[in-house]
């Protein structure tokens, strides 16, 4: 009895210390999530009480051509930016892992752009991509390209421009890859050398399997980040030209805060959550085949 009493007191003491976090979690995370789910089934303008409408918001989205347009745009962006971004980051990390002079300078140069605030970077790239005066087209002119792309003014090139710009911020991903690469035991490379492995063989059979958990981590983070792209196109293109860079989160924002269709905005948020969940689950399921954990 005394023991139960003291265990209960220990539990209550623990809960008391946890309570600030618990209160915050309930008040600012769990309750808003639950309300968001409820509002996704309502017509809610923020200014009046929500009006329950069942699946009306989801049906509206299913029949909305702009909804499918933004899903398409976001998918295209993710398919372009994610694999190329990961490959570029991995390549940069492998180069930065080489034992050469000035290694710390090169690492700093690669990482610095990811420290630039998003809005500042967007304004910078807005001018770099300027079709008439931008440095990129000036350089292309100098190289003999008579009609360089219109970049952000051309519906065919606006998306590739944003993908190119996304490589500017690979610093964080490079750092994580670098940490993984430095964990690869040197003995494995030495053993591979003895067996006559080429550089490609060493990368394919030693490096990649060993850093596969890191690749998996960056893949999941990349899926979430690319599907939630918002700030850069919001500043640079506002979804144009002709909705060619109008992404899912931008349409969600417009629905919620411009058109005051909070119910629709919440429904879009839950659809996005389900998409990210499914893709993450798929990645996790596939990881059984290609991710190798040390000691497993």
């Amino acid at each position: 009895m005394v023991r139960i009493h003291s265990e209960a007191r220990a539990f209550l003491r623990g809960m008391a210390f946890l309570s600030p976090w618990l209160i915050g979690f309930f008040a600012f995370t769990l309750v808003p999530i639950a309300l968001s789910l409820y509002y996704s089934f309502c017509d809610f303008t923020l200014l009046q009480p929500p009006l329950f409408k069942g699946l009306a918001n989801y049906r509206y989205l299913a029949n909305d051509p702009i909804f499918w347009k933004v899903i398409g745009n976001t998918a295209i962006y993710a398919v372009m930016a994610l694999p190329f971004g990961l490959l570029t980051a991995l390549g940069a990390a492998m180069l930065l892992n080489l034992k050469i002079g000035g290694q710390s300078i090169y690492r700093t140069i690669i990482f610095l752009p990811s420290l630039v605030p998003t809005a500042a970077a967007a304004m910078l790239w807005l001018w770099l991509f300027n079709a008439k005066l931008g440095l990129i087209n000036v350089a292309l002119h100098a190289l003999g390209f008579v009609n360089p792309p219109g970049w952000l003014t051309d519906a065919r090139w606006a998306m590739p421009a944003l993908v190119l710009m996304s490589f500017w911020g690979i610093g964080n991903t490079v750092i994580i890859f670098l940490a993984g690469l430095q964990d690869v035991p040197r003995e494995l490379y030495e053993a591979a050398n003895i067996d006559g492995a080429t550089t490609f063989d060493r990368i394919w059979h030693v490096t990649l399997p060993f850093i596969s958990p890191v690749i998996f981590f960056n893949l999941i983070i990349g899926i979430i980040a690319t599907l939630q792209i918002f700030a850069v196109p919001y500043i640079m293109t506002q979804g144009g030209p002709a909705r060619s860079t109008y992404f899912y989160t931008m349409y969600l924002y417009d629905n919620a805060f411009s058109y005051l269709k909070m119910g629709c905005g919440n429904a879009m948020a839950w659809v996005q959550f389900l998409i990210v969940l499914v893709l993450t689950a798929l990645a996790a399921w596939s990881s059984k085949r290609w991710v190798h954990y040390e000691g497993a």
Partner: protein
Amino acid sequence: MPSFLTRSLFVFRKLLVGAMIAAAVALLVFGPRAGDKLPKDCVIVDYWEKWTGDEEAGMRQIVDDFNSTVGRDKHIFVRYLSTSGIEQKTLVAAAAGAPPDVAGLYNQDLPQFGALDALEPLDEMAARHGISARQYKKVYWDECHYDGRLYGLVSSAYDLGLYYNKTIFRDRAGALRAAGLDPDRAPRSIQELDQYAKALNEIEPSGRINFAGYIPLEPGWYAGYTCIWFGGSWWNETTHKFTFTDPGVVRAYEWIQSYSKRLGAQQVAQFQSGFGAFASPQNAFLAPTVAMEQQGTFFAQFIHNLKPSMDGQWVAAVFPSFDPKLKDATYCNCDVLAIPRRAKHPEEAFEFIAFVNRQDEMEKLANLHCKISPLAKISPGFLRHHSNPYIRMFDDLAASPNAHPTEPVPILPEVNDELLAFTQQLSLLQVTPEEGLERIQVRLQQKYDEFMEDQRQRHLIR
């Protein structure tokens, strides 16, 4: 025994930490304090406004005038706060039960906010202050209403005309005369505008545009109302139906697209991408890379502030219409002062709004903002001393029967976004005017009908 260096370093570190703590304490005790010195025995009216820079400075003078006169007598103090995203912040604050007392909105926010019951109707307060339709130019009185209710009063107003660079007209008089055009006047019809533009264009053999006489989408802010000059309208206030397929509307967008067809879609897009920001000396009209531009009354102040060397080198004229019989057509726009629902001090807030709408204060603000007065009665001094030398023309236009207000559609943000996307597709030659307008008519009518049905269910429709 620690060496002298080690002891010195230890002492230095202690002194440094001590100095930093002392500096932090001094900053806390004696440092700057936020907040205005507010009078203690007054009702504080919070006024949120979108303006910054010169426009903010102008409005602050009006606020100071109020606080030192009517406000002092009635124990009301207006506290001005400049904020971006005024529409969203006002709505979110209203939803949270903590709105400002006065919100400086755009006129196009009124239908949406009014439909959502986000604003206090001002009819009774206006009547008590003797404010009525008689005192205003009809177009601006209409702008402040939605569904028969007054939801705001004007703070500043403007309308549109055609600005042209008379120096460029003079320098290229030969080319203009060769095309049978008079370099000493503005174009008088849309067809003439196109001819002037063509004669003034400078295009390389590759198609690259170096200079344009006129580009319909520069700045493109008013593209959705181009139909006014083509005798069309995309909203029928009687039937509450969109009329995007109105022949005047179709003609307007065909005209906009004709420039992309003639000059090349990518060439126009690349040319426009080289324009600097509106409020900069690299503005297309100021650079100059265009000879003519559709702009508001306030543009004269921007020209004077950003490129004073252009003073006296430009002229403002009536923007020409497609049918010369459609005279003095213009689009009128304004900023409004409104009282959000659940504002703490609506009566005191209206005292300030009524003060801004007094003839003397309204003309003072209009002068500071280089805009017209929305009031029917104008003092002769206002027109004589205004910073825009063509203020009389702009004022007459706003009083004309063909002065067109913003359409009172409660889903205007969606309409604007659809029109913007459509206009971009149009200029890139991705869609014809007929098929694009047909598509957005169907889509927007459905959205409007759904919105009104929801409002009926909420008993918000009278």
